[in-house]
């Protein structure tokens, strides 16, 4: 009986120990496997989209390439959307998410954010003749934003009665605005500028800024070695002006000083 008990206890403790062994360090894994899996958007130009040759390009895509190069490993790009980027981290489909992601304390209960790497803000756009200056003025209009994004959450919180059309991704939200399905479009400032360029007949009048919202990379909760390496990588590329070059190339303006995480 006692022997049985000891056996059972040992088995349970052993399985706990094994479970613990499975808690490996992602940073070491990336280096030992020689591959880093990075999730990027392909529906959010100029951060991530497909060019005429159907190759991924943009700020985040190039940033992913820089990360892999600095790590000295092979890059494996995975396309993600605003709604599935956190699930992809949680289920280990990717090691890092670089998808112009704004941080929130709510998201930070599930994943960890790096220091900011790109200077963007969230804003509300519409036709020139609409008089809208705050979330409170949005009551009578159909507003569109991609589901689960910072702008969608912020507007819904500021005005719970808002008539919000929540789309699967940013491209669908943009299409809804362009086609007139929605009258107001909440998105990242940079996305709006890019869309306005491509659709000269559509008005993208800035109604109001929701707030400054720099982009951060995301990693799985607990991966402190990886997040610290990425923070050092961002600091290094700020100092050597590589990050400034990316801002000028993709966002058309130099990098401004950013608050530190």
């Amino acid at each position, binding site marked *: 009986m006692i*022997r049985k008990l000891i056996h059972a206890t040992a088995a349970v403790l052993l399985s706990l*120990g094994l479970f613990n062994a499975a808690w490996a360090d992602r940073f070491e894994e990336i280096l030992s496997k020689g591959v880093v899996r990075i999730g990027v958007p392909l529906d959010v130009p100029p951060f991530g989209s497909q060019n005429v040759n159907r190759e991924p390009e943009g700020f985040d895509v190039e940033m992913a390439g820089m990360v892999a190069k600095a790590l000295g490993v092979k890059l494996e790009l995975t396309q993600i959307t605003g709604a599935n980027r956190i699930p992809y981290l949680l289920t280990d489909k990717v090691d890092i998410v670089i998808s112009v992601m704004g941080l929130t304390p709510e998201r930070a209960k599930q994943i960890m954010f790096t220091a900011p790497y790109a200077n963007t803000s969230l804003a509300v756009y519409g036709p020139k003749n609409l008089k809208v200056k705050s979330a409170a003025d949005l009551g009578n209009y159909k507003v569109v934003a991609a589901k689960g994004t910072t702008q969608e959450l912020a507007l819904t919180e500021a005005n719970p009665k808002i008539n919000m059309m929540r789309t699967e991704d940013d491209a669908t939200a943009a299409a809804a605005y362009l086609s007139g399905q929605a009258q107001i479009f909440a998105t990242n400032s940079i996305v709006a500028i890019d869309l306005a360029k491509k659709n000269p007949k559509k008005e993208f009048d800035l109604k109001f800024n929701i707030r400054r919202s720099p982009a951060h990379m995301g990693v799985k909760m607990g991966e402190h070695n990886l997040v610290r390496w990425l923070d050092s990588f961002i600091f290094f590329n700020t100092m050597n002006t590589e990050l400034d070059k990316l801002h000028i190339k993709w966002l058309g303006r130099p990098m401004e000083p950013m608050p530190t*995480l």
Partner: protein
Amino acid sequence: MFRHWVRIVVSVAVAALALASTGARADKLADILSKGVVRIIVFSDVPPFSSTNVKRELEGFDVDLAKMIAEALGVKLELVQATAANRIPYLLTDKADMNVAAMSVTAERAKQVMYSQPYADTSLAVYGPKSASVKTGADLGKNRIAVAKGTTEDIVLTSLNTPADIMRMEDNATSVQAYLSGQAQFLAANSVVVVELAKKNPNKEFDYKFPLRRAPAHVTVKQGEHNLLRWLDTFIFQATLTGDLNKLHIKWLGGPMTAPLPPL
């Protein structure tokens, strides 16, 4: 017999290994979220950071910040009152999950606790009557200076090797009382606390003598709680961008956050 002995040794070794590793895995952030309660340390007698109002409720900058933290975590708030000297012991003995009692950084304290990014800009200084010409620790002469035990102002003042008699009082309230009653000729305190004191005691002089140091306030957690610390940094970053932290500065510290605070 031998087999039995081996079995015991093996099971004990396995148990020790498993305990050691699971012990290292315990995570305070996950604990807080699963229990649905966060226990936060604040002062009971340091306005405008945290003190008791006429309704005998705690109020102040730190109290509001603690409420914002609990709300952002989506859990119930349990305030734990402490003095400057027992803030760290309370964290180390797990009486609380985090400390929001206006604590500034010292390398010594950082051996025991971990600091978040700063959330409030304050500085520490020495105050006294207008007539006293005092610009350094040496100028304090043989006078008495009151300070709350275990505060950063106590640590900096002590390092000055002043000839003055440093009265290390149990808490902020008794330190202030020693100065108001004239027991001490000088007071070492947080600049923000002194603004509040001067308002409440118009007949007492709180003339600024010399600075001890700039001392932003940080949230602290027990050493090793990296997930919780990263969450707090994220929370502070967000509260800075949304302007919520600035609103707290205006409400309790009498003005907006000036320059960006230096990062940790």
